[in-house]
């Protein structure tokens, strides 16, 4: 099965190069663009399995949206003792500047990237939630388009759901919260790791790609300014700029990028910002532990999808468990992102284990520990043979009138056979994700 695609690896990668499917990285402070290595063998998900994931992921994102609305208003979940105040206020992602702001249609996380893995037992486990500016949807989207060009026969009998509808899903998501005016994709610029994605999603969704200097606030509204002095009101900003750079009047005053006054317009309900500023409080690695509790608290349901078994060093009982089993757990520093700050106890020497234990004892709030999940390998093409690699799945959940999961996703695999880290900034590649229509 799928062997017909293997032969097309080279032609598909050539097409990807033609369309500049790249991501940027900084090496020694110099910006480089690299092609994102593509493996032609897709991850295949049956319709039945996708239905299950769809229910589980939508449920999770609905609860996370409830949580964000609650955190920035009444904080009932804290008052009711479900989540300790510590996990809100000492999270870097909590932005008190966003207190009391109600985003259009009360949606905070419009585009969520949820990372999962499938264990050898067949069960799916959530690894982490990305509710700020998750990237990656553009890659399987364009890869599908190009694979269909290079290997049309592979699709004739397989009944794969088309994933190129991401652009229209994105557009509907923007339109739904748009307060009147055009949609824009706000990029920090050409030298951003995900610039390809910014420009491609703008092109496909019909939004205008813009840099901060193209936008200006006037009389509590946001405008796109033309070169000959005209202006057009902006109703939704899909921003790919992180919170702290969004508005120098509200966040980092020394930031040279950003749109001064944007937060005032947003707070006044005169523009939608996608995703809402302040979402970092909900995708914090510490808050992750509480997501199943949130689902019960806000929705009155049991979580459909499981978290990886997680221990919070914050709780004394968990802490002693972690310290006792440090050599078999994976420890994550909640203040780091992008695959950094993740340590496998089994890889550490006795001295390193001791150091880690001391760090956990000194700052328990900073660490979570998880059981290492033995997740399934996927095959990739390596020269003339196929070899197994660890792979995860980033599913994209879009919240508009309804919350739904894009029938595809970004499957990332690790570069090295013994690595569990699949982050693209650490040298892995990607696969398309096929959802079958039956």
């Amino acid at each position: 099965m799928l062997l017909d695609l293997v032969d097309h690896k080279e032609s598909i990668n050539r097409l990807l190069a033609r369309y500049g499917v790249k991501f940027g990285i900084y090496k020694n402070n110099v910006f480089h663009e690299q092609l994102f290595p593509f493996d032609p063998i897709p991850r295949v998900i049956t319709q039945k399995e996708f239905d299950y994931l769809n229910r589980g992921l939508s449920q999770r994102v609905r609860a996370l949206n409830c949580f964000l609305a609650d955190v920035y208003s009444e904080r009932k979940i804290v008052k009711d003792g479900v989540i300790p105040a510590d996990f809100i206020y000492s999270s870097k992602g909590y932005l008190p500047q966003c207190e009391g702001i109600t985003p259009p249609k009360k949606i905070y996380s419009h585009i969520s990237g949820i990372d999962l893995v499938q264990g050898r037992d067949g069960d799916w486990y959530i690894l982490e939630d990305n509710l700020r500016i998750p990237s990656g949807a553009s890659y399987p989207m364009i890869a599908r388009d190009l694979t269909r060009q290079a290997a049309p026969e592979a699709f004739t009998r397989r009944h794969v759901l088309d994933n190129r509808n991401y652009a229209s899903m994105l557009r509907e998501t923007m339109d739904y919260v748009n307060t009147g005016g055009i949609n824009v994709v706000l990029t920090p610029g050409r030298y951003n790791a995900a610039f390809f994605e910014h420009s491609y999603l703008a092109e496909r969704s019909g939004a205008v790609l813009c840099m901060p200097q193209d936008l200006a606030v006037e009389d509590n509204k946001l405008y796109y300014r033309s070169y000959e002095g005209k202006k057009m009101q902006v109703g939704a900003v899909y921003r790919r700029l992180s919170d702290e750079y969004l508005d120098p009047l509200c966040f980092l005053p020394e930031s040279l990028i950003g749109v001064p006054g944007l937060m005032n317009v947003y707070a006044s309900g005169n523009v939608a910002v996608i995703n809402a500023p302040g979402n970092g409080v909900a995708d914090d690695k510490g808050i992750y532990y509480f997501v199943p509790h949130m689902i019960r608290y806000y929705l009155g349901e049991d979580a459909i999808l499981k978290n990886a078994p997680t221990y919070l060093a914050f709780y004394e009982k968990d802490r002693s468990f972690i310290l006792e089993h440090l050599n078999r757990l994976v420890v994550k520093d909640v203040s780091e992102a992008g695959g950094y700050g993740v340590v496998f106890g089994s890889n550490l020497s006795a001295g390193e284990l001791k150091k880690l234990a001391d760090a956990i004892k000194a700052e328990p709030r900073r660490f979570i520990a998880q059981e290492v999940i033995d997740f399934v390998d996927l095959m990739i093409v390596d020269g003339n043979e196929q070899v197994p690699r660890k792979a995860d799945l980033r599913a994209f959940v879009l919240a508009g009138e309804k919350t739904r999961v894009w029938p595809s996703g970004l499957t990332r695999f690790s570069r090295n056979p013994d690595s569990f880290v699949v982050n693209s900034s650490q040298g892995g590649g990607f696969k398309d994700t096929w959802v079958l229509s039956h």
Partner: protein
Amino acid sequence: MGIISLERADHLYWIGRYTERVFTTLVTFFDFYDQMIDMDLNAYQDYCKMVAIPDIYGDKGTFNRRYLFDQYDPNSVYSNLERAYDNAIVIRDEISSYTLAYIQLALDHLQAASGSAAPHYDLQQVIDDLHAFWGCVDDRVDDEEARNIMKCGKYLERLDLYIRLGYPKRDIERGYSKFINRLDRVHLQYHEECRGKLDEIIGSGSVKERRDEAVAAVWNFF
């Protein structure tokens, strides 16, 4: 969508300029290359003078290699094409991925031709890519104003090179009229006195005699 930001207008204009610079220099370069095969080994020195770039090359072999392919030489064809790419990629949504791909292909083909024993032959592919690029611009860039701004850049660059490289009067006249034709359809601000000067010099057929004045008027146009 009919509204172009200052930043975007700038990128559109410079895509026009850089793609045309690559295109016309390649075409002209072939003439000089042809001379250098067996007639005038140092013809490249005149070339550098004409286009006002420093002669850092020393001999024709180095010139052929570095002027075409050296990514660290800011005046090389490669560097200019990279700048075209830098301006194009930030307005992918305006020009379409399909159009942008031809600049990517031109870059890839230029890189592939480096070290070739027969650059004239191999670089034809780059010229083909640029022709395809401009064909795509006409077909795929929906916004007329955006197209016209690109062409303002393209034709001003062409005019500049034609004047510097001593192209015949008729070519210059035609280049200038193409430029003016686009200029009057956009809202770019320019210096009226430069336009007046070019009208006068080109109109009176005295570009050869007043070359420096004409070059300055182009330089200061926007």
